[in-house]
C-alpha cells in the first residue's frame, strides 16, 4: 500500500512542521486572549530565538538542550522588554496603534539582526547526529522526533500551567474580564508580563527547532512563519490555547499536503486558502467561541 505509507510519511512531516507553527501560534493566542492585541513581532521573536540558538550552538561547550534553554530564556527576556517599552504605554489606546507599534518593533528587530549578523542565510551547526528510523515502511528522523517531542512537552506543560497554578488561574481570569480580575486582587501587569514571557519563550524554542530542522537561519525568516502562525491561531479560534495547537498542526499538514500533490510553488498559498475556507463556514475559527455582541 504505497499510498498509505506515503500518507503516513507526510503525516509525520506535517506534524513536525505543524509543531513549530503551533508553538508560535500559542504566543499569538495567549496575548490576544489577555490584552486583545495582535503582537505582530512574534515572528521576529521566533527569528531572534533561532539566532540566539545559533550563537549558543557555535560555542563549543553547548549541547542541544542548553541551546534550546538558553534561546528560550533570551527570548523570554526580550518579550518582556518589548512589552514594557512598546506596548505598555499604549495599552489603553486603540488596538490599531498597538498593531502599528508591534510592526515597528518587528521592523526594528529584523533590521537589527541584518545589521548584526548580516542578511545572508546561515546554516545551523549539527548539535547532534541526525539518524533515520524506519518504522514499518515510513521513515522518521531524529530531528522530527525531537521537534514533535519538545513541542508536545511544551504544550502539555503550558496546559498544566494554565489549568493548575495560581498564575494560570490569574491568566484565565484576566482573559475573561481584566477589570474584574484586577478588583479581585490580580496583578494585571504581572500577568501580562508572564504571558509575554511564556509566549516569547515558546516562539524562541520554535526558532531553535526550526533552525535545526531546516538548517537555515536568516533575518527575514520570521515574517512568513509569523504570518502562518497567526493564521494558525485564527484558524483554531484566536484566544483559545487548544485551538492554536490544532490550528498549527492543520496549517503544517496542509502545507506538506500541498507539496505532496506536486503544487509546492503554491505551498505558501495553501495555508491561507484553507484558512479563508474555514473562516467562511465557521467565522470564529475551529475552537473559537461565538461572542454575543450587544449594542
Amino acid at each position, binding site marked *: 500500500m504505497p499510498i498509505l505509507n506515503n500518507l503516513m510519511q507526510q503525516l509525520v512531516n506535517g506534524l513536525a512542521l505543524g509543531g513549530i507553527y503551533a508553538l508560535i501560534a500559542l504566543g499569538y493566542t495567549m496575548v490576544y486572549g489577555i490584552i486583545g492585541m495582535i503582537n505582530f513581532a512574534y515572528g521576529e521573536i521566533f527569528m531572534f530565538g533561532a539566532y540566539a540558538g545559533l550563537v549558543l550552538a557555535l560555542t563549543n561547550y553547548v549541547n542541544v538542550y542548553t541551546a534550546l534553554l538558553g534561546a528560550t530564556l533570551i527570548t523570554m527576556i526580550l518579550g518582556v522588554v518589548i512589552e514594557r517599552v512598546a506596548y505598555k504605554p499604549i495599552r489603553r489606546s486603540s488596538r490599531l496603534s498597538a498593531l502599528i507599534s508591534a510592526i515597528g518593533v518587528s521592523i526594528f528587530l529584523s533590521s537589527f539582526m541584518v545589521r548584526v549578523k548580516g542578511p545572508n542565510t546561515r546554516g545551523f551547526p549539527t548539535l547532534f547526529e541526525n539518524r533515520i528510523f524506519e518504522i514499518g515502511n515510513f521513515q522518521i528522523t531524529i530531528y522530527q522526533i525531537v521537534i514533535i517531542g519538545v513541542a508536545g512537552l511544551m504544550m502539555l506543560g503550558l496546559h498544566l500551567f494554565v489549568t493548575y497554578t495560581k498564575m494560570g488561574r490569574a491568566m484565565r481570569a484576566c482573559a475573561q474580564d481584566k477589570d474584574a480580575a484586577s478588583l479581585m486582587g490580580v496583578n494585571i501587569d504581572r500577568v501580562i508580563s508572564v504571558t509575554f514571557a511564556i509566549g516569547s519563550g515558546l516562539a524562541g524554542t520554535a526558532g531553535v527547532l526550526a533552525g535545526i530542522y531546516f538548517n537555515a537561519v536568516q533575518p527575514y525568516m520570521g515574517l512568513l512563519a509569523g504570518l502562518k502562525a497567526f*493564521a494558525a491561531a485564527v484558524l483554531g479560534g484566536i484566544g483559545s490555547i487548544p485551538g492554536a495547537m490544532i490550528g498549527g498542526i492543520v496549517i503544517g499538514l496542509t502545507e506538506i499536503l500541498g507539496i505532496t500533490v506536486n503544487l509546492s510553488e503554491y505551498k505558501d498559498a495553501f495555508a491561507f486558502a484553507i484558512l479563508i475556507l474555514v473562516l467562511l463556514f465557521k467565522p470564529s475559527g475551529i475552537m473559537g467561541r461565538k461572542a454575543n455582541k450587544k449594542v
Partner: protein
Amino acid sequence: MKKLLDNWLVQFLLFLCVLGLTAFITDAIGDVLPPYLLMIGLFIGINLIMALGLNLITGVTGQLSLGHAAFMSIGAYASAIATVNYHVPFLGGVLIGGLVACLFGIVIGFPTLRLTGDYLAIATLGFAEIVRVQFTNMKITNGAIGFLGIQGSTTFPIVMTIAVITIILMVWLENSRNGRAMLAIREDEIASSAVGINTTLYKIQAFAIGAFCAGVGGALFAHTTTFIQPTDFGFMKSVDILSIVVLGGLGSIPGTVIGAIVLTAAPEILRPLANYRMMVYGVLLVIIMIFRPYGLLGGVNLRKAVRRAFMLTKKKQAGREE
C-alpha cells in the same frame, strides 16, 4: 455665497479649476525640482492615493484590511499587461488597473466582509498572500522574474492631479449620505443595521472604492518603476500603507496626507544613517504611536481648528480696536 457653492455646476467648475491649477503648479514645480526630490514627491503621491483608499476601508468604515498590497499588485499587473501587451494608452491602463482591482475588491468583499475585526484582517492578509503566490506562478506576469519593459509614463503632474482628484472625491464622499452610513458602521455595526443601514452594501462600497484607489496607485507605481515583481507587493507593502493611515490619524483625510508625506520621506531622510536606517524607522513608528496613539492628526478636526485659530485672531483684533 453659500447658496452659490451648493450649485453642482459651480462645484464642478470649481473642481475643474482646482485640477487645472494643480496640474499647472506641479508642472512648474516639476521643472524646478531636482529629479531625486521629484521621485520622492511622486512616491508620496502614489502612496497617498493608495492610503486614501485604505483610509476609507479602515479609517472611515472601520474594517481592518491587511491586504491592500494585493489590490495594488492587481492594478499594477493589469495596467502593465494592458499597456505593454495590448498597447492601451497610459491613462487607459491606469483606469483598467483601477477597475480590475475594484472588481476583485467586490468579488473578495462579498464572502469576506461577513467576518469582523481580526478575522477579517487575517482573511484579507491570506488573500494578499494567495494573490502574490498566484502572480509568482503565472505565465503572463512572467512569474518571479518580474514584468519587464513597462514604459515610465508616470509624471509628477499626473500623479499629483490624480491625488488631488482622490482627495476631493474622498472629502465629498465622506460628507455624503454614503459616507455617513460608513461612519455609522465604524461606530457601531449592530446599531447602524438596526436603524436601517444596509451594512453589507456600504462595506462592499468602501471596499470597492478602496480597491480602486489601490489599483490606480499600483498602475502608477508600475509605470514609474518600469519593472514589477511579486515581491514588491508583499505583506510589508500592505503594512506600509496601513502605517500611513494609522500614523496620520484614522479616518482623517488631512492626517492621511501628512502620514503619506512623513512615512514616504522618512526612509529617504534617514538615508545618511545607512545600515541603521530601518532600525530607526522601526523605533520611529513605536515612538509616534506612544506619544500620539491616535495618529498625528487623530481626533483633530482640522476645519474646527482652523476656524478657531481664525476666530481667535479676529477676537484679538476686535479687542485691540476697542
